[in-house]
């Protein structure tokens, strides 16, 4: 499958996400520069973590106006798969592709730490490789991850099973203590009604290699790949699997001019 990782000037998890998709998951991956209007025929768009345009205003508030986001919106509206991680989730909220909003973390501090999330709904394109109730260990790193939705919206989200991940403890129990950023109903990841756009605050790309302490994040990428392969039909596992360029400790040049 072909993945596109959007690069805003202040994205800083762009290469991390690219690295995991290409070098760990073995998928063809390209960067999509924020000033471009072309999605290069990708099967899936990933909005990575970072500080899109500095985020001195509300996180993601400016990114939603960028040229590439117009294309991402069109892509999503026509059923394309879009994953927003951390800042990517914030941008999806600002762009109206997902409902609700982010507040500052409840302790008013940036938080970088391992958290546990529970798969609430495994019948989505982003979680089908996991079991319902499965606990994943994936880190967070954000200042504005305290998800908020008004009560009516919240009950809709619950009813439509749009809450895909919730913060929990190591044993899968929901608690306020495990809900470090204070999100309403412990929400860590959210999908749209149509089921093709998912936003999540935890960083699966930081939990996809054993050497970094967890491989649970691969479940999300695996789910997407399986879903796309099934959708493209006939289970023809193409040669893209063999796509393994040499891994360099330093990232390549990004974007065009």
């Amino acid at each position, binding site marked *: 499958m072909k993945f596109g990782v959007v690069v805003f*000037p*202040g994205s*800083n*998890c762009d*290469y*991390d996400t690219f*690295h*995991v998709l290409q*070098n760990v998951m073995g998928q063809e991956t390209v960067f999509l520069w924020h000033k471009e209007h072309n999605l290069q025929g990708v099967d899936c768009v990933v909005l990575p*973590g*970072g*500080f899109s*345009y*500095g*985020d*001195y205003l509300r996180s993601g508030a400016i990114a939603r106006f960028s040229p590439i986001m117009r294309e991402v919106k069109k892509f999503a509206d026509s059923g394309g798969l879009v994953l927003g991680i951390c800042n990517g989730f914030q941008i999806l909220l600002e762009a109206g592709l997902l409902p609700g909003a982010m507040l500052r973390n409840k302790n008013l*501090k*940036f*938080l*970088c*730490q391992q958290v546990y999330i529970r798969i609430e709904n495994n019948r989505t394109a982003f979680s089908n490789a996991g079991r319902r109730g499965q606990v994943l260990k994936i*880190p967070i*790193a954000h*200042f504005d991850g305290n998800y908020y939705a008004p009560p009516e919206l919240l009950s809709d989200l619950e009813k439509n099973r749009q809450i895909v991940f919730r913060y929990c403890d190591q044993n899968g129990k929901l608690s306020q203590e495990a809900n470090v950023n204070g999100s309403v109903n412990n929400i860590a990841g959210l999908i749209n009604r149509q089921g093709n756009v998912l936003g999540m605050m935890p*960083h699966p*790309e*930081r939990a996809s*290699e054993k*050497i*970094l*302490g967890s491989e649970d994040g691969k479940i999300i990428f695996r789910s997407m790949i399986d879903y796309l392969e099934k959708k493209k039909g006939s289970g023809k596992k193409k040669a893209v699997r063999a796509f393994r360029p*040499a*891994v*360099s*400790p*330093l*990232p390549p*040049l*990004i*974007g*065009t*001019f």
Partner: protein
Amino acid sequence: MIDEKTLADHNLTREEYDLIVNLIGREPNLTELGIFSVMWSEHCGYKSSRVYLKKFPTRGKYLIQGPGENAGVMDIGDGLAVVFKIESHNHPSYIEPYQGAATGVGGILRDIFTMGARPVAVLDSLRFGPIDEPGNRSIMDGVVSGISGYGNSFGVPTVGGEVYFHECYAQNPLVNVCCVGLAQKDRLFFARASGVGNAVIYVGARTGRDGIHGATMASAEFGEETEHKRPNVQVGDPFKEKLLLEACLEAMARNLIVGIQDMGAAGLTCSTTEMAAKAGTGMEINLDLVPQREAGMNPYEIMLSESQERMLIVTEPDKVQELQKIFNKWDLEAAVIGRVTDDGRLRAYFHGQQVIDIPVKAVVDLCPAYRRPARTPAFQKKVTRLRPPEMPSDLNQVFLQLLASPNIADKEWVFRQYDHMVQVNTMVLPGADAAVLRLKGLKKGLAMTLDGNSLYTFLNPRKGGQIAVAEACRNLACVGATPIGVTNCLNFGNPEKPEIMWQFKQAVEGIAEACRRFEIPVTGGNVSFYNETEGKAVYPTPVLGIIGLVEDTALVPAAGFRGAGEVIILLGENTEELGGSEYLRLVFSEEKGQPPALNFDREKRVQDCCRQAIKSGLVRTAHDLSEGGLAVALAECSFQGPRRIGFEVKLNDRIRTDALLFGESQSRILLTARKENVRKILALARKMKVRARVIGRTGGGNMIIWHRRKKVIDQPADLGYRAWKNSIPDYFKIKKS
């Protein structure tokens, strides 16, 4: 005409002024005086320290670039180089903690990417006044938020460092930031304005009136008027810095840069004069072309502004257009402001008039160096005399008290505010002895640590300096790394006082000797003098940053116990030493005695043995012994695993129990191993002439230590953990009244 008051405002002496007149052959105008004043400030000119810094060894096996550039560079093989340096931002962080610390991070990041390296890690060493004072907590909160705000947005992981509290830092907090970058060895860039006729290009943020005379401010003591210095502190913009990083690295990759220098302390002044002086050229610039943030700035302000996120680039005229395209791509402003000349002078024009005309060599290379008088402080004899106090009856209580001491307690409250995982390389997270980064696609990795113990240095500056080096190397040994290069940040009081100068000289000599013995070159660093407020100096605080190379990242042991039933081995010897210990300070309020003894040969053997055992794949956990001694080190291992694991340890040394438990004898490392590997480790130690013994096992819910058949410590691991874990956060809890 320059009067005494103007000279005093510029921190220049009459003799220095006469020298300037002599060097340029006339009286300088005010702008020129300003230029000399910053370049000859202690901060930029190292005038009190230079004669001593020469004692550092600066050659080594892996060395590519030693002192004199923006940062040191080491060769790590596979065509890669590691670029690293430490800087202080102490004065600004006291005046305005958030921005002071943030711009400290920004400054050191630029030093690294100026050389063509991508910053891959930041570590910081922070020292504040006692945490129970709200004022100190507010500074700490601001500093940590500033580091977090800048580093997280920029996208560099803050992977480690240290945090200490002591009365002497209440009005002089120390903020030392170390950055490590990774570059291709054949693509390093230097601060040289080579090629007469080449274009001089200004990129990045516009120049404003912020930070004028920051370097001069950092070269004087603080008095009561410190509040007025707030406008001297710059304001950081990490997003702009990120753009600057990407744009510069792209321009470098496309071969569009001849020389490059960041505008840090002393801004445009420093970058223009240094680049020309290093290349043996001159420079001509038009100040009207410098992008400015506000109207009506005069040449003095433009030259001395310390606005952040700016770079000066020299390139061939035919590459200017392409360079500008790259900066446009990253939404940055780039302006040609002048050209390289051949006459060794810096000439600047403003509104059509020549306002600066000075020889660059005089500014950069002829700053006077002073061998200031040094004298042993009167208190020195008194503090080193120690009559050991009577041993407290309840050592369990002492044990818990130590675990909760802010100097020993868990620092998660601090480091979880830093993004320490971005770039997906961080294998060993903050809180361990040393941070370890994997290098994608390679078997090897990079290890790094910051270390310093100012109480030792206060009691004995020479030995304190030696121990700082030894302990940093020991930290690296605990992750299986071989130390390859050193950077240091030397934080001292007012060098014009002979007692301070003595401390400085002794500490530098100690560090130099230790680096020679460990065969690691000093590649640069930073000296921060005048850490005094109202006549009270900080304890002499050298902070050592050492980089190590890990051969095989798969073998890096954990910092905490990994399971029950593992065997605990102690490398090294327990001796009866209490001087300078956290135990004495905390329990008896005594800051006395000699710091622990250090035998270089023994230290090196212990470290080699640890590294060898790790390389042979025998080690599960490794942790060095430092503040709080053996008992605290065991507890830390117990707390840092995936879950709390107790231990039972039996010791028979014929020394005082408190010295055995809490003494800080050097050259000791704790290891754990699976039962079947214990004999191999002991045999290895015997072969390497290192004392090693099995002292106990992991497991159970309690932390138990026996001394000569008496149970001297028995505490539930959970209880100790809570004391250690909650100590710092509890101070920051909002008290409900």
